[in-house]
């Protein structure tokens, strides 16, 4: 599959079909999910209506991490095989990833005010998301500051890969350093878990975010492929070489 898509022409063909599908699926999931989340589901006992923030917050936090993983994998491919499509992919994962990270921070702090009484706590989980934002910004900054595309791709991919090793280290150190945030109650096995009327809308919202991520990334890759096409379109060389042997 990946091998098949590695050709930009085939990729464009594929994305022509896939992109709208992702877009519409995401829209549908959002409508359904938000309906369940905002209207159907009950307010929580401790958090009251503010719990509805969870349906925006938790998927954003998850997608932020998923996007980074995708980014790191694309970077690995780009670094080893120097494939231009992988560069486009990595670059296109970064922007939505940054946006999700930012969204997780904003919704988290909007939730923090009713839940903890402050916008922000220097708690391990939140700090590590802040650091993830720094990593994303650094990654984007490299693309931004280096005009030569190939070089930018290579340097950015090095940073993304090393940054990926760094993520468990940060998580471990920061989690261990100061904890306040909700422990992972869904992701860890045997945890008490949420009742199904909360779990369902959450799951659908996660799907919606994931499709949104797919849609944004595909569009980003398409635009990037087209852009580098245009750059290559003008092919008449400025000079001809004349070689004379004396």
């Amino acid at each position: 599959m990946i091998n098949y898509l590695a050709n930009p022409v085939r990729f464009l063909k594929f994305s022509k079909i896939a992109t709208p599908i992702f877009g519409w699926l995401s829209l549908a999931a959002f409508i359904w999910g938000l309906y369940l989340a905002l209207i159907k589901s009950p307010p929580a006992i401790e958090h009251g209506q503010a719990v509805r923030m969870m349906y925006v917050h938790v998927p954003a936090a998850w997608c932020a991490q998923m996007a980074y993983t995708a980014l790191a994998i694309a970077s690995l491919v780009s670094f080893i095989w120097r494939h231009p499509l992988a560069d486009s992919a990595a670059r296109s994962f970064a922007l939505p990833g940054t946006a999700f990270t930012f969204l997780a921070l904003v919704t988290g702090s909007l939730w923090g005010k009713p839940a903890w009484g402050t916008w922000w706590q220097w708690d391990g989980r939140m700090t590590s998301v802040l650091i993830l934002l720094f990593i994303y910004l650094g990654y984007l900054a490299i693309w931004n500051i280096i005009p030569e595309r190939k070089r930018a791709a290579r340097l950015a991919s090095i940073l993304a890969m090393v940054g990926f090793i760094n993520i468990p280290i940060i998580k471990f150190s920061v989690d261990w350093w100061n904890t306040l945030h909700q422990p992972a109650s869904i992701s860890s096995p045997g945890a008490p878990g949420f009742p199904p009327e909360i779990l369902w809308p959450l799951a659908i919202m996660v799907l919606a975010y994931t499709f949104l991520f797919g849609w944004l990334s595909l569009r980003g890759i398409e635009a990037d492929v087209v852009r580098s096409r245009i750059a290559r379109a003008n092919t008449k060389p400025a000079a001809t070489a004349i070689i004379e042997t004396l």
Partner: protein
Amino acid sequence: MMRAMIKRDLTLAMRSGGTWLYGLFFFAVFIALSAIALGGSLNLMRPFAPALIWLAVIFSAMLSFPAIFQTDFEDGNLAQFKLSNQSLLSLCMAKAISFAALSILPLILATPLAALVFDMPLQNVMATMISLCLAAPALAIYGVLSSAILAGRQGGGFLIVLITTPFIIPLLIFGVEAINGYAQSALAAPELRVLIGLSLISIAVGLPAASAALKAQLE
């Protein structure tokens, strides 16, 4: 022709791929790192918040100081400037203005966000922003002066921190105190007046001194 100079500096900043914004990143990183180092407890840190914000602004600005004249000196633009019919004083003024706009203003605008992560009361946020605004001209002019003095020395960066520190200490002291002053007497706080005074002095003394320093650099 100050306009042309300011326009050029702004264009250069925009062209640099957003480099001028990195001062803002430094500001954020500084706040984050100090919060982490101090242990992250909001109750413990709240009293220090204005001080930390002031420190973040000062270090972020200080680290942009060397850039004010460094590249212009190295690539020979400063020598050409001397050969144009423009006064060095207006050059210094233009540099101070573009520095304030590019390197200090964004920090002041980011202060409310920083205040959020320390959970500062609104009044203190206002006070911090006002004190920073009043100190901005002085900060920019100290930057121009020290950069003019050290233009073209390698490693001038650190040295600039050293030579501007004595000038900046009064700003820092009164700036941080102004937050208490503001709580008591709002805009009438004597510390704020001192900050205005310091800014005026720096305009009157610092700018001519900077242009003299540039002249000395070029002969």
